[in-house]
């Protein structure tokens, strides 16, 4: 049983090594991570050179704090980073279903639990590794160019944000397993992420439990080393939801027909 899981995991791993996902996803995150401290640092220069300010005007923008820069980095990750991750993995099951490559796999004595969790763990491993290297880049350049942020704040904030990524990628796997159209997977997961973030921003009182609160908790950790109200509720709820979504996905996948059509 475990052995079969290993076989399936190795297939996922080799596939993303060969199609360079293991290269370009970390690269995207490193670029995003490094860009934020760099642009913050050179912001004043950039404006002076290209902003077309009137002669003699003195620019006096206070430099951002390290925590602000890191929070901005997470903002980049939540927009461009998520988009890239979702596009990279929306086809993980849906693509196999529409090509038909899953048939010769699932016709073997393969447990659907193994098939789905091997993909899940692999997706999380790539996504979180990319996040870690990208975030490490951001932390490094922030320390170098702006100021150091206390290590504890950085680590705890990063860990909380990693859970938010885990939640979104679990959703990607779920939709990919249950739908054949990758468009549904992309819109569904990005839409949910956006909706949760927006609701958390405008009605934080109602959304205390929501995984969408996690990214603002992680930003607060950068600033103060403390989370906001309701952190534990949203943390617990996120873990419950991740477990629930995975269980439901495996259950539904078992019930669904493997061969939807006969061509």
């Amino acid at each position, binding site marked *: 049983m475990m052995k079969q899981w290993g076989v399936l995991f190795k297939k996922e791993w080799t596939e993303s090594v060969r199609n360079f996902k293991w290269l370009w996803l970390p690269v995207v995150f490193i670029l995003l991570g490094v860009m934020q401290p760099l642009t913050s640092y050179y912001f004043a220069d950039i404006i002076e050179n290209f902003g077309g300010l009137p002669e003699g005007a003195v620019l006096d923008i206070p430099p951002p704090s390290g925590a602000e820069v890191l929070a901005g980095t997470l903002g980049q990750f939540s927009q461009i980073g998520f988009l890239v991750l979702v596009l990279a993995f929306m086809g993980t099951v849906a693509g196999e279903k529409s090509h038909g490559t899953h*048939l010769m796999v699932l016709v073997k004595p393969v447990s659907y639990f193994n098939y789905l969790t091997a993909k899940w763990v692999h997706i999380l491993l790539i996504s979180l590794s990319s996040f870690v290297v990208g975030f490490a880049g951001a932390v490094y350049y922030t320390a170098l160019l702006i100021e150091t942020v206390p290590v504890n704040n950085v680590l705890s904030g990063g860990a909380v944000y990693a859970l938010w990524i885990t939640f979104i990628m679990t959703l990607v796997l779920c939709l990919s397993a249950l739908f054949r159209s990758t468009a549904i997977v992309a819109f569904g997961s990005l839409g949910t992420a956006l909706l949760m973030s927006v609701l958390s921003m405008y009605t934080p009182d109602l959304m205390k439990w929501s995984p969408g609160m996690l990214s603002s908790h992680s930003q607060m950790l950068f600033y103060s080393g403390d989370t906001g109200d309701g952190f534990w509720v949203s943390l617990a709820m996120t873990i419950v939801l991740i477990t629930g979504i995975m269980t439901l996905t495996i259950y539904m996948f078992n019930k669904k027909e493997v061969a939807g059509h006969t061509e």
Partner: protein
Amino acid sequence: MSLIETARLTKKYNGNAAVDTVSLSIREGVCTALLGPNGAGKTTTLNMLTGLIKPTEGEIDFNKNYAGDRRKHIGYLPQYPKFYGWMTGEEYVSFSAELAGLSKKKAKESTNKMLSLVGLEEDRRKKVSGYSGGMKQRLGIAQALVHEPKLVILDEPVSALDPIGRREILELMKTLKQHTSILFSTHVLHDAEEVSDDIFIMKKGKIIIEGGLSELQQKYQQPAFFIETEKAMDNWLSSINEKSWVRQSKLDKKKLTLTVEEVDTARDALLKDPMLHKLKLLKFEVAKTSLEDLFMKVMR
């Protein structure tokens, strides 16, 4: 005891039965053909046997001697096999073997054996995306056999191939059937006649004819005469049609196919008939109708 048996197996899509109360019994150690035109329900039936599709009604029983998940004992080649193109042929076959539970070492051994059996040794390190249709078909057979299943199910294994590829696969199937039971689908009677022992003919979701090949051939092969003459046969034929030994006649201009009860009586009677001699015989041939005639008739 048979290897796999179905009882009133039915699959409905939006109320229409793609497979309709099909009761099959596949014997162990033989090659069975599931024969039928496009849309007969062959793929749907096979997919239910492999577990890829769930039946709306009916049951499937696998031989009790082979316990557990029946997928362990089945090897399957889909009608349109789709591989991970980024793998090499060798990687794909050994991936399949390991999925079926073989140890790494065993998987490797079995992979080597299968690749040489299907003749892909030279191309084993090429990416599957670069394989031709015929090579993919052979790779598909290799992955179906690699865990030494009790039953190999091949969905139209030769339909997509050119005559040479077709020949190769049919020969391969003849070799295979000495070791494993095979169930394959086809829409060509000739393929079924060439390799199979048992035949099920399917049409519009139903099994309409079933039996052993030789039994069916005997049952449906009737003695017949092909007769050609210089003059028109119409008048003479109406007198012949009255005879008790005639089963059926079919006249096409000056060519007559006469199906009869028994060869000897008919031949004597025909050759002694002076009327026939007056029509100036061009051709007089004793033959047999084939399963083909039956097949064409039921398929219409």
